[in-house]
């Protein structure tokens, strides 16, 4: 994502809905996907994304250009998604949502590409489900969003060494699961 130019930000700050839509178009992709990977549910991800953009709109005046706009949005997204997920867990709802797979399977023929896609998606869902929120968040930001250690540290407001150790633990946990799976298959 290219960073939003200051002119667009200033217009959005004055209430220009067109400028805010430009911000939305540039950032909605990663906001939604980060929310999806943390909440593991497309309906919740949509709710989180809506909440994130309303927070951005209301707090734009507080963005003092101390960090890149992108990292500021990542921070809001991660916090909102984590709070939403924690609330969800507290209410003890159990929704396993694979509705992302249904359109792929229903609307297209079962090509090997689509099967792999849906297989990868379900595999990702189950792998991320093994991790704690903190480890999952770091891994998603690094592996799926491609953020650097520094960007992750600024977004999550944690030391860079904490980013490093969380990534190590997350990768170790996934390796152990993969090895267990191979062992079970044998």
């Amino acid at each position, binding site marked *: 994502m290219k960073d939003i130019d200051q002119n667009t930000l200033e217009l959005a700050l004055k209430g220009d809905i067109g400028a805010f839509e430009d911000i*939305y178009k540039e950032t909605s992709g*990663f906001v939604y996907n980060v929310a999806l990977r943390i909440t593991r549910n497309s309906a919740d991800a949509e709710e989180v*994304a809506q909440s994130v953009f309303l927070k951005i709109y209301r707090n734009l005046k507080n963005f003092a250009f101390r960090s890149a706009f992108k990292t500021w949005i990542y921070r809001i997204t991660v916090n909102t998604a984590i709070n939403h997920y924690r609330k969800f867990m507290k209410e003890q709802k159990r929704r396993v949502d694979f509705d992302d797979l249904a359109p792929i399977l229903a609307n297209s023929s079962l090509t090997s590409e689509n099967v792999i896609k849906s297989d990868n998606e379900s595999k990702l869902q189950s792998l991320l489900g093994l991790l704690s929120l903190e480890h999952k968040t770091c891994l998603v930001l690094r592996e*799926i969003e491609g953020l650097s250690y520094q960007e992750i540290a600024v977004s999550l407001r944690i030391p860079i060494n904490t980013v490093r150790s969380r990534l*190590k633990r997350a*990768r170790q946990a996934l390796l152990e699961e993969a090895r267990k799976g191979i062992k079970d298959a044998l």
Partner: protein
Amino acid sequence: MRCKEIQNLLKSDYLDGNLNLLKQREVSKHLQGCDQCRILEKELRGQKEFFQKIKKQNVPGGLWQNIKHEILKEQLEGEAYSGVFERLKEFLFPSRRVLALVSAATAVIVVMVLAGSFIRGRNILNEEKDGYILADYTINTEGQELFSGFGTNIEEYFL
């Protein structure tokens, strides 16, 4: 470097391309001679490749409309609220111009009241003065025929 150190680097900076050239060479050299670490590196690469295949999901189509609706609603509510608030603020904390006008009007009223009191005061004094004149007249004409010209046969009869 020992295996534990290498494995820590494999799971973090080495895999993420954060190592300087010197450290990279050290790790590569170790991997050439260590099967356990080489297997670990291969597994971690496989994991990274898996994540690279994950496609980002499309944002739901109606999301922007919902957000826009909420923003426009807030803007309208904000305008209505700020209108009421502004009027209240003007009433409690009037602008300088309003204050100046009110002060001037107050000053005029005060002057008028004072002037009115002054004028009334003078009238009262004059009435008192007239009272003194009357009293003086009365005292000085005591014993004199006050009713001259009024004398009638009846009065003469009784007097």
